[in-house]
């Protein structure tokens, strides 16, 4: 067992984890972040996405011990007035919503890199996330809306 500290949405969580513990399970079971979800267990659907610093990580493939001291953001850590969160809600970019936290975090990462992403940049950045309800048209609109809110022309 290893003692590590994860800073989750600004709050330090000191916890004991085994060598093989996944970041996904530690965030869900010990930090209470159930917006982080297992959809495939192999890093192929994006439902378990978190931001470490400003970088997206598939937490279902990440060993928790490697993130000692890391600053981790999950979707429930974002304010309702956050540009991306409010854009997704206003654009109807959630049906069942199960996968949407992953899209929200990927969008934050995209906008940090490209404040005014092109259509192809949106596609490239989000194509690793699966929305089985097929909310992709609304997600596209939400990303553009968030970009506009974040850095108005």
């Amino acid at each position: 067992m290893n003692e590590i500290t994860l800073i989750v949405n600004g709050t330090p969580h000191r916890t004991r984890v085994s060598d093989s513990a996944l970041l996904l399970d530690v965030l869900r079971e010990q930090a209470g972040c159930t917006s982080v979800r297992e959809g495939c267990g192999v890093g192929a659907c994006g439902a378990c996405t978190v931001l470490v610093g400003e970088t997206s990580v598939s937490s279902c493939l990440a060993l928790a011990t490697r993130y000692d001291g890391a600053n981790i953001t999950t979707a429930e850590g974002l304010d309702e007035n956050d540009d991306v969160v409010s854009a997704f809600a206003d654009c109807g970019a959630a049906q069942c919503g199960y996968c949407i936290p992953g899209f929200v975090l990927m969008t934050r990462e995209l906008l940090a890199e490209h404040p005014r992403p092109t259509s192809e940049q949106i596609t490239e950045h989000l194509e690793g996330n699966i929305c089985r309800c097929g909310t992709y048209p609304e997600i596209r609109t939400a990303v553009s809306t968030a970009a506009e809110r974040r850095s108005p022309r």
Partner: protein
Amino acid sequence: MPETPEKTSRQDWVGGRRARYDALGRVRGVVGHVGDQPVGTCAHVAVHRSTQPHAAIRAVHTEEALAIDGVYAVVTGADLHKRFGEALLTGPAFADQPALAYDKVRFVGEPVAAVLAADLATAREAADAVYVEYDELDPVYDLDTALNGESYVHDELRPSAVFGDLRHLDGVRDTNINYEYRLRHGNPNKVSGARTVRGEFWAPPTHHVPIELPCTVAWVEGGRLEMLTTTQTPSYVRQTIADLLDLPLSRVRVTTRPLGGSFGAKMYDRLEPLAAALAWQFQRKVRLAASREEAFLLTTRHGAAITSTLTADAGGQLSAATADVAYDTGAYADVGPRITAKSGMVAPGPYRIGSVDVRSRCVYTNKPSAGPFRGFGVPQVTWSHESLIDELAHELGEDPYAFRREHLLREGDLAPMGTRMHSADFVGCLDAVAESISWDTQPDRGTGRIRRGRGVAVGVKAVLTPTIANAVLQLNQDASATLMISTVDMGQGSDTIMAQIVADVLRVDSRRVHVVRADTDVTPYDTITAGSRSTYHTGNAVRAVAESMRVRLLALAAEQPEQPEQHGQPERSGVDTGELDEERIAEIVHAHFGARGATLTTEANFTSSWSPYDKETGRSEKVTEHWFAGAVGVRLAVDTATGRVHLEHLAVAGDVGRAINPALVEQQLTGAAIMGIGHALFDQLVLDQGQLVNGTLLDYQLPSIRDLPDELTPIIVESPHDDGPFGAKGVGETGILAVAPAIGNAIRDAIGLRFTRLPMTPEAIVTALESR
């Protein structure tokens, strides 16, 4: 954000585009799903699965598994069979599926033993340590072997108690065909046709892959079996568990949370019978959580083979259609027999056709069981009839859009299966998509590497009938309301539109109407949340319960003496019963009970009826409560070097009667179309000798944002249903029916090749081009 009261209320009522219930909670991921609920100390369950497609179980060795630290118990199918007897066999159409296999195994991956342990990792380790000895039996890998071979997946057929019309099949032996539906009208063999087209079509098995994985928690409290589970069918599950454990319904409680998608995957008997049996056997809390790889084995969409013909007479009228349909239902029938009949009856398509002959069969094989999937078997037969009529139009030198339009069923027409058409505007849907994709403008088909084409297709499906819906409405004294129904919101938006219906009737704010999550201790019986039935059936019950509340309020208002001093508006005193609003309702309820916070309760039922099929002809004058009509139009480009298909524009139209919430209807149409794009171009389960080859999301391809057409246009067509709530019908499946054939027809238009097998992968297209 603040809105004017007038605008707020209108947007919140029927026809308004109000936002989905808890949109912000969904976006931030704070909606609590089943797997998110804390369960405290419990036994985590893992199952040992069969490595054989078809084999008798000689012995199950559990000693090594039991010796692992942290293992509470290991249970075999034989243990459960000894305890529960034949009740261990469950299923909606046939009671043929054991929670754990006990006499023989019927597919690779079938659960044989269950381990209960202190944590999931230990349970899985111990499940791997279970060792089973088998005596191999001849496997039935495909439809051909099943229909023509001498190995049988089941010794005899076992119809369940759910569908009375299957009773005659009880005890039938030496067959893999568990159900056959036959539709006969006129005599297609005696029709002298000017032109007949024929095809052998194949739609492969696919998987639903809702991103939320199935999870069930079961425990015993006060001699009752309680369960929290990911299900679309809480009322059905309660009955199944009561039958399995031989308990009165009052001693079984099934609760749900919002589902993270389902599409048919989480219904009927999935993890629930095993969870209930284990909780009851050991009188302790158990938690079953499927991994993605396990979820692939729980249920699938039926692969289907269809051999069909369509004939036009010398005058250009459709004179005959035939179809021989075989659904591969895998090792367990699930609801396959229902799928077989309900889609067999629409196999000729929504056209005026003189004579039809359809044989539709449900066939056991040694593969994972197939069950309900958005469309309920209809997309598979739509693939057949919409390819055939397209080909016939080409053969006759007719325009495929105009040819369909001429022959489509109209309001009042009798369909080939004998039921009249109402509120099914096929022509309106077809016209809408044709206009949207500018059908009249010929595509620039090209002569080089990139070829372009356009295609249309139409779909027809019956709503699940007969079914039962109940609603209980509790009106709170402050004019907010609490609606109790057993419809499960899994992303389709039922919690939102049911609140809109209540609010519209009572003239209150729909955001103050709360829909209680299905809980069989609290919410009344509802057949299932499936088959696009909830808007119409449960919506009717909800409208009725709100109307009943309105009548009740007006009666209470009439009883009350004038008390103008209470609100200072004498003209709106007790005897003025004409109008209700929130202020008035609060006054009426307060005056009646003399208390704040009091509640008024009403209840309502809506039940649909049908006429069973005639045994000889398969016809019925009312086979369904209503019809879904949909159409798809596509413009696309084919890269003849790579075989890749690029969708430039896809338009999808559905006749929904009346849109309760147009924004949610459009999302159902586009979401279904996107799922259909996967089925058309790449989505399929691959099995090799009964072994699932691509049952992980590394290997199983699903539509991503990259697969979106350049333009995707949802179109709402409204021809109100006489008996729908505000004229409305459902929409969950309408958009998926015609996607694959519309794309296939456009590919034919682009490169002149007719594909009959799905999916139309780049490899298939390149191979076909090279062998031309």
